[in-house]
Every structure is written in structure tokens, then in C-alpha cells.
């Protein structure tokens, strides 16, 4: 049973066992506008919770995507590097960024669930 959680930096993370898939939310892609470039980490490298894991660039600005958890990168979505429009079109599906092997399977405990995140976004106006 997969667990879906969200961060205040507008990333989503879906955990399945000891691995998790990470991407940016629909709100994030709307705020960024048309995404024109994505830089992903190399599989096999480590990401640290709260530190930069990827870079996403739109016509407006370049932004970091922060790792919501620590772990080893086991796969990245090369398809979005070639076609960044996928992130705009389907941020929670085809537009995923990377998957990691979690250092701590309970790392998602402090993050928001879907309802809490929806409330958080509503506050952002």
C-alpha cells in the first residue's frame, strides 16, 4: 500500500516499501509556468533531506527541488529531461523526477497528507 505525502516546498513523495518516488506538485508546476529544463541527479548518488536533489527551470525562473528524505537515488526519469513539458502535463504521474531507496522507512512521518497539503496551498492564495 503506497503512502503519498507532500512538503511545504511543493514536492510530493510516494512511498512503497523502502523505496519512494519524488516529484513536484500540480501547484508547483502552475506557479513555475512552462518548464523548459530539468536537471536530475545521477543514479547511485545520494540525496540528503532538505538539500538540493534536482533543478527545474521555467521561462520565469530556475528553482531547486529539495529532497524531502535522505537516501540513494535508484532511478531518475530521463523522459522529463528530454521533454520537460511532461512535468506540466502530468506532474504526479509521467512527470516524476526520481526514486530513492529510503535510509529510514519512517522518514515520511512528519510530512503532510493530501488533505493537509490542499489546506496549505489554499493558505498560499
Amino acid at each position, binding site marked *: 500500500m503506497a503512502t503519498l505525502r507532500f512538503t511545504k516546498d511543493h514536492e510530493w513523495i510516494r512511498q512503497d516499501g523502502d523505496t519512494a518516488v519524488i516529484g513536484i506538485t500540480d501547484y508547483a508546476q502552475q506557479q513555475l*509556468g512552462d518548464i*523548459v529544463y530539468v536537471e536530475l541527479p545521477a543514479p547511485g548518488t545520494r540525496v540528503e533531506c532538505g538539500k538540493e536533489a534536482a533543478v527545474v527551470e521555467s521561462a520565469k525562473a530556475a528553482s531547486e527541488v529539495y529532497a524531502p528524505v535522505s537516501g540513494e537515488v535508484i532511478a531518475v526519469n530521463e523522459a522529463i529531461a528530454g521533454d520537460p513539458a511532461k512535468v506540466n502535463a502530468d506532474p504526479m504521474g509521467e512527470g516524476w523526477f526520481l526514486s530513492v531507496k529510503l535510509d529510514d522507512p519512517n522518514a515520511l512521518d512528519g510530512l503532510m497528507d493530501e488533505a493537509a497539503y490542499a489546506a496549505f496551498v489554499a493558505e498560499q492564495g
Partner: protein
Amino acid sequence: MTGWSQALRAPSMAASDTPTFTGNRGLQVEEKLIFEQDAPGRCGVDLPEPPPHNNRLGGLARCSPIGLPGLSEPQVVRHFTRLSQKNYAIDSGLYPLGSCTMKHNPRLNERLARLAGFADIHPLQPESTVQGALELIDTLAHWLKVLTGMPAVALSPAAGAHGELCGMMTIRAALSAQGDARTRILVPESAHGTNPATAASCGYAIDAIPNNARGRVDLAALKAKLGGDVAALMLTNPNTCGLFEDEIVEIAAAVHAAGAYFYCDGANFNAIVGRVRPADLGIDALHLNLHKTFSTPHGGGGPGSGPVALAAALAPFAPLPWIVHGDAGWRLVEHAEGAAAAAIGRLKGFHGQMGMFVRALAYMMSHGADGLRQVAEDAVLNANYLRVRLADALTQSYPGACMHEVLFDDRFLKDTGVATLDFAKALIDEGFHPMTMYFPLVVHGAVLIEPTETESKASLDQFADTVNALAARATAGDAASFHAAPRLTPRRRLDETGAARKPVLRWRPNAVQRDAAD
């Protein structure tokens, strides 16, 4: 016609206009790319036949044409004249691009820069024949030292970001000379993007410091991040929100107490020149944009020039060349030896942007100390005049007086369906270069306006009236006209996303065939 020019060939026409037969709009000419004007065999100059010679190129001889278009002189003149007429420049109108300081470039500067003694010399001439030029560079450095209160100035950096690189390299060299290998640079979230880029280029890790609710650096957060591994803080003052960092003295003390250096991005020095000396604020290194504060041309008319003022602790590491005065007059120190043994080496060929040095010094000397002080005062006055004139229609991000530029965000467009980008495009139809958009990143949908001191009240009023009228139109629910803007430009809304995702960076003669093959 090539794929390239077909993509560009969609002359802008309001729906009600009758198209012209030529595609031209009045004197606004649809100009073909110069390669599309090629008439093989045509040539603007008569070249003599080469004398008889033995070809010694062997297999290296070129066997295909080099691909230059055949053109007559009048064609070339018209082409570039027409292109230049499509340009918008500070010479043609208000250019309120926040953070860029698009001020008037005085013609006196241009006149002096064209004097033969400055314009027709070469950097490899013997020093004895360019004593005046060397003295001018030293005099400029003297003015910059007086204005900053700092004891040394490195003049060779060729632009603001190059100046940042120079400053951070001297800081790294100074730390390294002390055997103090530090790894982190603190940069506020509102910083110019060049700040973290510079620090990263120097091999440092970047640590972002949040703003406080007043649009300034959060001092408590800064202090919490300081430590023995912090090499420097990079701070812009006034910052990119157009606000003076009023806790800067305490910030400097905290940075120094941690054994770090204090780098200041001086891109906004035009707001404080003649009124505040950066040395008195505790700054160790600061770059100055001659092309902003000191009126030398930029934004296509450059080159820029970014001298760096250095505190005594950093001066020994200043890049070469140094200009010194000795028994035989002015002299260049070009090697890292003697007093310059610790210099970080060269950052640029020769001595820097000589033409800009002449213009900047002309500007300083023609204004004098009192005039430069008034430059800062009038820049701040003009920005605040616009702030007040726009206060009812737009939403100011941080209340109260601003410095040389005023920051609004897009709350005034909430629920109108109009975005900051659409608003900027509508300003183009009204004959203005838009303000800076979406920067700084610390506010939503930023609108950053910097009028500079060289705009008259009439010019500011016309701009304010226009912005207020557009804001009223947006709130009245006419989003469609904004989405359609610009309507009156040679091209309508450009596909910025397409340009970034699938850039075509080079014209190729066989573009049509290549596209077909794709």
C-alpha cells in the same frame, strides 16, 4: 524561404487592419535575414586578383564556398540601419528595468572617449607613450577609493559578475593564505542570481538566508548560519527589493566575528553614491558597475565594467595589472612578484575596459562630489515619486519608502486573469520598455521599477498614468486585451517556451531540407 524565417514571418496585425502588399507597416520594414538577401557574385568591395602564387595548401585547401552572402554596400547599410531602428534603447525612451539602472548616457562621456589620445592607443604601446591613459586609470581608481572609503581598487573586471568573481577569488586567496579552508558562502534569498553562481564557480557551497517580513535579511537566521566554515556573506545593499539593509553594521560585525569576509554586491550603489561609504558599513569587498552607477552604456551598448574595491586585508591579492607611480612616471605591474607576489593573477587581457574608464571618469568629474550626491538623491526621489503615484493601483510588497527602485507584487492582479507577464506586454503597446518582472523571487509575480534620476517629472507622470490606466483596465475585467498584447509590435507574443525548449541557435542554408529530414 527558410524554416527559420517562416517561423518569424507572422507580421503583427490588429484584426481590423488591412494587410499591406509588402508586409511592411508604414516605415516599419519586414527585414529579411542577411543570408536571405544573398545574390551570388555581388560584392561591396573590389578586391584585386591575387598575384600569381604557388598553392601550398595541398589537401587543406577549401573545396566548398565559405557561405558568406553576396551583398552590395547599400544593402548592408540598409540592413543594419533597419535592424537598429527596431531596437528600443535608453536613447529612445523610458527604460524602467528594475535592478538594471538604465540611466541616460551623457554625450560628454562619448566625446571624451573619442579623443585620439584615449581612442587611438594600443595596450601594447610602450608605457612612456601612454602616461596620460595610465594616469586616467589611476585617477578613476582614486575617485572610486574616495567614494567607497576603501584603500584599493581592482579595475580589470569586465562586468558586474566578473567583479563578483574577482572579489570572491581575492577572499578565497586571503583565506587560503591564512591556511583557513572554509567551504560555505551565505547568500540572501533576494540576491541577484549571479551571487550564488559566483560562489559556486569559486567552489563554495551556497547557503540561502531568508528575508524577514520587512524585506531585509533575517539577522537571527543569518547569525544561526554563521560558523567557522563560512568564507563570506554576499549581500546587496540597497537590496533587490529596493530597500536599504538597515541592520548592515550589525550584520558586518557578526560576519567578522565568525572570521568570515563581507562581500557586497554594489550593483545598486547608484542609490547611495556620495552619501554612504561602503567601508564605513564594514564591507571588505564590493564591485561597482560603471555601466550602472557611472552612466556608461550597457544593455547592448556596452561593454560593462565592474571594478572591485577592496579592504586592506584583501588588497595584496588584487588581480594584475597594478598601476603604480615611480621615478619614471606611471608603470604597470604585470607579474606576481615583489609587492604583488600574492596577486591572484590576471582576470582579463590588458588593463580592463579603457573606453568605459574614460566615460565613467568624465561622468564623475563633470558631476563633482556634490553632483554625485545629487544623483543618488534624485534616483531615490524619482523611485519614491513613482511609488506614491502607483500606490493606490498596485500592491507594494513592503510598505514605506524605497531607495532607487520600488517593488510591487501581483496581488493587484488577483482574480483578474491577468499575469505580471501580460501586464508587461501591454506596456510595450503603450510605448514603454517593461519593468523587471518575476525578480526578485522573494515576492509573487514581482514588478520591479527603477526610473533612475535622469527621467523628468513629465516622463514619470506619463508612465504612472499609463500603469494606473492599465491596472484599472485589468481590474475592470478586460483580461482578453492583456492576453492579446502586444498588438502593435513588429511581432506579437513570442513563444518563449518554444524558444527555450527547442532553441534554433543558428541559421543554416539548408534548414528546409534539414527540417524535412527531421
